[in-house]
């Protein structure tokens, strides 16, 4: 799938079919994300439509499904609660600008610095938070609420055992809504909380004062959204690269996410990013090209406009049942095995990332601190320098740089010979501190009357040493 024509029309039949499946699979989550935020379902449904349609044209990874997501919704909760919908839209637009600029500067290359322990922490915290957001709709709703949520949950796990052509959550929703309507059980429904769109999204400017005060409010959210959106989108791109054995341009994807968020904000939608679950459903259903993403967005919108009156009748407990399944699939259950097998520092990074996210309710802060922490652990790990002493002289093992020089200098505190050789064959000088440390050792020993000879510097270390002394 190299040429644009192939990316669009190389797999038409399968792309359209897969797009329809994904369109169906997007609806329950999009609705639930709106409820997480406490906004009208339209905000999430419009976003899912525009995100999918726009990224199908400008995204870097064909077949990637972008829409409103739980991760982005969770970042936005407090903004909506404190300042309202118009600020959400403004933050979405600003997120688009930031992501686009980051994409121009090659932000995807930084993905290398996010270790998988942080990504594990991210998805686990996300799973837990999605689960927590569903509890208010579950607890205190009475016996029938538990029954409907429970049965829905059983259905979404049982159905794929026998039938996989239509996404199980959708079948479960149709069946359970039917049962609720026929039996006349009184349950809170989607229509009780919000109204459904009956028209296509239209362009409008968010109604906010264009001043510094506004920027101060939305900038932190836009930054957090940018980090969270890019992380999830690039992670999903990598998963799809692997599934399809095809490479993709991650910086194009970052810019594409930016463009899509920018436009989504003007059409009354919340910020979105790639959805891992739905993207995998797309590939599993045979979707490979850009047409699959486009179809999913258009089909979603079509369904909502045609079936809006039916959708409002879906009981909330049924949606909650589906979302509990979503939270369980988001959570990485192999993490417990990971905790046992991985190095202690990596396990710790994962746990701290989860803890910070759950404490701050901010996925971005957790990721940033997780990355910093893992970088520090890495430095600590590689800063181990040993100096061994035998008849041939002193042998240095390990990289010499700002974090490892103290130990190196201390190793020469008790030199008793008149003449020593320091061998750097198994070492590497990285920076000024390394050269300064050697210089200092040499000086101190020469003051004591010890002759010092430096040996075995590799060529780059040698160059650095000569340049700085």
């Amino acid at each position, binding site marked *: 799938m190299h040429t644009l024509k192939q990316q669009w029309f190389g797999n038409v039949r399968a792309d359209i079919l897969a797009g329809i499946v994904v369109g169906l699979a997007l609806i329950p989550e999009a609705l639930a994300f709106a409820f997480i935020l406490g906004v009208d379902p339209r905000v999430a449904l419009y976003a899912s439509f525009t995100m999918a349609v726009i990224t199908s044209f400008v995204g870097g990874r064909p077949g990637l499904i972008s829409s409103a997501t739980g991760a982005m919704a969770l970042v936005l909760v407090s903004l909506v609660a404190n300042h309202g919908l118009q600020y959400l839209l403004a933050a979405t637009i600003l997120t688009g600008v930031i992501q686009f600029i980051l994409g121009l500067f090659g932000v995807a290359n930084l993905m*290398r610095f996010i270790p998988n322990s942080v990504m594990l922490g991210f998805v686990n915290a996300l799973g837990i938070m999605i689960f927590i957001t569903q509890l208010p709709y579950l607890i205190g709703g009475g016996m029938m609420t538990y029954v409907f949520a429970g049965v829905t949950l059983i259905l979404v796990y049982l159905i794929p055992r026998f039938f996989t052509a239509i996404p199980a959550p959708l079948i479960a929703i149709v069946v359970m809504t039917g049962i609720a309507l026929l039996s006349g059980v009184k349950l809170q429904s989607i229509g009780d909380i919000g109204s459904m769109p009956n028209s296509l999204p239209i362009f409008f400017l968010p109604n906010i004062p264009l001043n510094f005060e506004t920027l101060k409010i939305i900038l932190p959210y836009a930054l957090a959204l940018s980090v969270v959106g890019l992380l999830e989108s690039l992670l999903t791109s990598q998963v799809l690269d*692997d599934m399809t054995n095809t490479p993709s341009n991650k910086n194009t994807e970052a810019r594409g996410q930016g463009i899509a968020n920018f436009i989504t904000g003007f059409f009354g939608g919340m910020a979105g990013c790639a959805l891992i679950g739905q993207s*995998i459903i797309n590939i599993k259903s045979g979707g490979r090209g850009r047409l699959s993403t486009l179809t999913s967005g258009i089909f979603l919108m079509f369904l909502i406009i045609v079936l809006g009156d039916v959708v409002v009748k879906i009981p909330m407990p049924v949606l909650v049942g589906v979302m509990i399944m979503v939270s369980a699939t988001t959570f990485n259950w192999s993490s417990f095995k990971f905790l046992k097998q991985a190095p202690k520092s990596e396990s710790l990074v994962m746990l701290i990332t989860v803890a910070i996210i759950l404490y701050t309710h901010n996925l971005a802060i957790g990721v940033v601190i997780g990355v910093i922490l893992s970088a520090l652990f890495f430095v600590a790990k590689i800063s181990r320098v040993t100096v061994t002493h035998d008849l041939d002289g002193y042998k240095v093992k390990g990289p010499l740089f700002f974090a490892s020089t103290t130990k190196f200098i201390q190793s020469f505190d008790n030199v008793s010979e008149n003449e020593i050789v320091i061998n750097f064959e198994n070492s590497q000088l990285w920076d000024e501190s390394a050269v300064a440390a050697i210089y200092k050792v040499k000086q101190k020993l020469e003051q004591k009357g010890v002759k010092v000879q430096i040996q075995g510097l590799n060529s780059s270390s040698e160059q650095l040493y000569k340049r700085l002394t």
Partner: protein
Amino acid sequence: MKIAVAIDGSENALRAAKHAITLCKYLPDAHLEIIYVSDYNKAKDERLLSQSPESLTLKREKKVHPVLELAKDVGVKTKLTMLKGNPSQEIIKYVNSEEIDQLVIGSRGLNTFQEMVLGSVSHKVMKHVNCPITIVK
């Protein structure tokens, strides 16, 4: 003659591979086709549990490596095919299109819970391949 074995990195699959290698040893012009399928359902978890895309590739190769070594030790010629998708579907498709003469497969995969939920790969494969199949306990 083409004898194929499907591998998933489990103990059980390794026993199946050993049996397939023994068969190949006694058939002078036979070669061993080793099939490994990365399951789409595990794609996300596999990525999250690997440090990088490269280390994921290495992990997969390590799963088939013992079989390649065993075959090499006894001088059996091998052909390795790494596929991606739904394991049973991919195995069936490959075995039928490559006109494999005999398929050897382990009776169960990595854990019993998955087997209960998803059904066993060996059972599905057995029903749909065109060649004789040996299921190794």
